[in-house]
């Protein structure tokens, strides 16, 4: 099966400093790839390039063999909306919305009717063990509950790839284990590939494959 996502000779600089320097990477469908490295090694920038949030200075990112860099802004929006999911370190849910509304947001953006979107979002929250918190807002739940809702939001529209940027970075060990386990479990259930950025080698060890970055370069491919 061809890789769902592939990067070729990616290069991106912020001024004189290269954040990503000639990275090659491919992600197969359903595969969980860990990207590890020290702070400032270019992990998050690489993740943004792979997801189409940033366009690299040179090189190419292919999603199902379609070059992302040649897509229009609207097409890249559509790509993220339909095929990608995101989990950030602090959840980054919309603070003014309830958890249910946050999780249903990707579906609403795709045009799903509100009632249907809420139903599916409720199921997703239920599956992640926070079904009773749907009417609460971001400020009314704990960090672990917030990250579970973030995972639910990333998976509710059944994306092909989930990008997770330090998804457990703000959690204690116990919650990290639970949340990370849920992320992998639910992603595998949906058949979604996961690109996981973390500096926690213990978590990275649970991925299918790990890529180590240093100074923007892949120094230890799996």
């Amino acid at each position, binding site marked *: 099966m061809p890789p769902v996502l592939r990067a070729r000779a990616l290069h991106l600089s912020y001024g004189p400093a290269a954040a990503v320097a000639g990275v090659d990477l491919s992600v197969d469908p359903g595969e969980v790839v860990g990207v590890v490295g020290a702070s400032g090694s270019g992990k998050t920038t690489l993740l*943004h390039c792979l*997801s189409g*949030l*940033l*366009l690299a200075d040179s090189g190419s990112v292919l999603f199902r063999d379609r070059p992302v860099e040649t897509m229009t*802004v*609207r097409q890249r*929006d*559509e*790509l*993220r*909306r*339909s095929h*990608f999911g*995101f989990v*950030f370190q602090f959840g*980054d*849910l*919309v*603070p*003014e*919305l309830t958890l249910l*509304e946050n999780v249903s*947001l*990707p579906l*609403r*953006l795709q045009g799903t009717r*509100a009632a249907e979107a809420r139903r599916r979002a409720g199921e997703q929250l239920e599956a992640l063990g926070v079904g009773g918190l749907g009417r609460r*807002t971001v400020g009314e739940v704990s960090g672990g509950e917030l990250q579970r809702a973030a995972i639910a*939001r990333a998976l509710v529209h059944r994306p092909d790839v989930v990008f997770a940027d330090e998804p457990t970075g703000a959690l204690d060990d116990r919650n990290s284990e639970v949340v990370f386990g849920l992320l992998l479990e639910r992603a595998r259930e949906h058949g979604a590939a996961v690109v996981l950025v973390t500096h926690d080698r213990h978590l990275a060890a649970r991925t299918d494959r790990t890529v180590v970055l240093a100074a923007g370069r892949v120094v230890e491919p799996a």
Partner: protein
Amino acid sequence: MRPTTTVPAAPAVAWRALLSRQARRRVVLLALAGVVAALGVLAAVGAAEVKGRENARSGAVEPLFGPQPGYGGVPVFSRPDVPETGWSQLEHRYRGHIVKIVRVADPHDRGPFPPGVTAWPRPGQALVSPALDRLIRSAPASLGQWFAGTDAEVLPAAAVGSAGQLIAYLGVTPEELGTLQGPLTGFGSAGRSGSGWYPALGSMLFLVMPAFALVLTASRFGRQVRTTRYRALRLLGLPAAHARAAGALETAAPVAAGALAAALAWPFLLPEMFALPLTGRWLFGADLRVPAGRSALIVLGVAVLAGALGAATASGSDRASRGVRLLRPVRLTSPWVALLFGAGLLLLAVAYSRHKPRDPLLWAAIVLLGAGLPSAAAWVGQQLARLLGRVEAGVVWLLAMRRLAADPQSRFRVAGMVGIAVFAVGAAQPVSQVMAQPHLPWVAQARAAGHTDLLAGAETLEVVPLRLADPPAAVHALVPAVALWSPDQDRAVRPAHAALVADCRRLEELFARPLPDCAGGRMMLRAAPLPAGDGQPAAQAQGRPDAGGGLLLRSADRTRQTSVAPVATTLDLPADQDTPVWAVMVLPPDDPALAELGDPFQTAAYMRIAVDAAAWEEARTWVVSSSPAYRLENSYQLSGVLDSTGSWVLLGLTASAAVTVLGALLAVAEDGGRRREWFALRALGMARGRLTAVQFTEALVAAALTVALATLASTGVTVTYLRINEDRLDSGLPYLLAAGAGMSVVVLAAAASSWATLRTPYR
């Protein structure tokens, strides 16, 4: 154990904070806030100072006379061996302008002279103010004819009371002047020394709210960073007092620098900024210099205000650092935040029902409504957003309503400040309209009686006979006012004087009896202020003079006068038709005694005539038919307001607009630090256009609601104020303009905010 510091901690922390790269934008914005706030107060204080300086100039000083003839003095020029100066002044109206014409006879060049005048003009010469000179050159020939055959020189600008003052000193011979007045002995100040401070204080009150809001917004800028900093420093052991002092210094220093720069630049800004031609006039005649001591106080006041607000941030971080309670933004969830606005509405309703002139409740209501508008708009907006958020209308609508409901303070920050400006414009409209009209009791009563078309007057007394060719008999007796325009006058411009043409013969017909001392035919009538107990029953006035005395008649030389009782049989009045009457007699131009008299002359008396309803109606019909229908035009009113108190209104509105714009800039800059909020939504694939739509929806709802509330409040003020003054609104255009401009400002601020927040490297 208390930590010890080797250097004063507060200045050191504040200094470091100010010099950091991250603080650069905040420092610049705070300094700008200081500039604008200080400029506003400096302008108000400077304008008050101007009043004092103008009062000391020749055009504004009041002449002082020796004893009048008949009161222990002798007529001027009656002693040939004593050099005396005679003076007679009269204010004429010309196209909405007041032209002050001073006839002065100084045959011996002895003076006295007011400041700026070194010699009085000889007969056939005139000194005219620069503004009058310009008006004469630009106006049709009618005004120039006033000075035909006169050699006119222009007074230096520094010699007139204000740059727009229309004044002429006409040299005349003692014979031309007459002998009515005592000799001119000197000049005194036209007004009390502090007279300029009343409108200045009003302006400053008007400036307080937006200036406070501006400094508040500016001081809050970067609050999160500072809270984090002071929380960390407190945890490291920085004393609470030091943290507060550092917070105060960090905020106050840039504001003080900006205010100081404004104070230093003020003298250089004045000549250009405040001598701008405005509808042909100038805002201020003198410059707006502010004494150094007062400037220093202004700078200090602005800085102290900023410092107090800055200290509050550090104080909050102090509480947070001790874990007493978390630092949470205050949520507008309580209806108490709308208390000020609600109280204003309540007072307005009471003022409306009391219907009392110069009601302090009305002015208190205006202040409360203006001050309470931003918080009331935010609270109402929050409730409305909660309600509207239930409507299923897509993601954009959902996000906009949820954001409005969750943080109305931020969402309504710009709209609230704009709301104050919109309210101020709307509330100023009825005040300016009423101020542009004559304050005559009979006007109010005539209007209350439904005679709204009787507001009329002559441009100048000279043109009265031109308009009144053949008034009916009833007019001779009863017309309280007659519409008078000069032949070449624009009919849309309101005449400004009431007049009744009569002479001795007509007056004797009116009173059905011979009038003593009326042989010369030089009589005139004019209303005096109404006596106490206004509104007495008609029966009391019928056929009898009222408590103010009968009808006072004087001959032109004031040497003969008598009081005449109106005759009941002629002035029969049905019940409830008691109407005070303003009446002026002006000599017809062909009267042979006119040359003797010089100018048309008027003197005051009071009479209360019981008016026959049928005669009134006849007179009214004649007035209406012989006068072009007119309505007060806003252009005229604006012109009038600019001449009088409009300078203050404009000053306040300009400052308010400047404060609003800067407040919007601050809000946009603050929004620029919240880009992360939008990044997550972009990552979810939400198009930038949709995010922009969210921001615009928020802005539109906030603007529409705030402007609607502001217009509602200002309309309430208008209705109440006009009811009290027995007036009606001439045009709703200013409300539409204010509302439109207000909406535009909020939407433009939203556009700028959108650009700032969505301008991310994430393409």
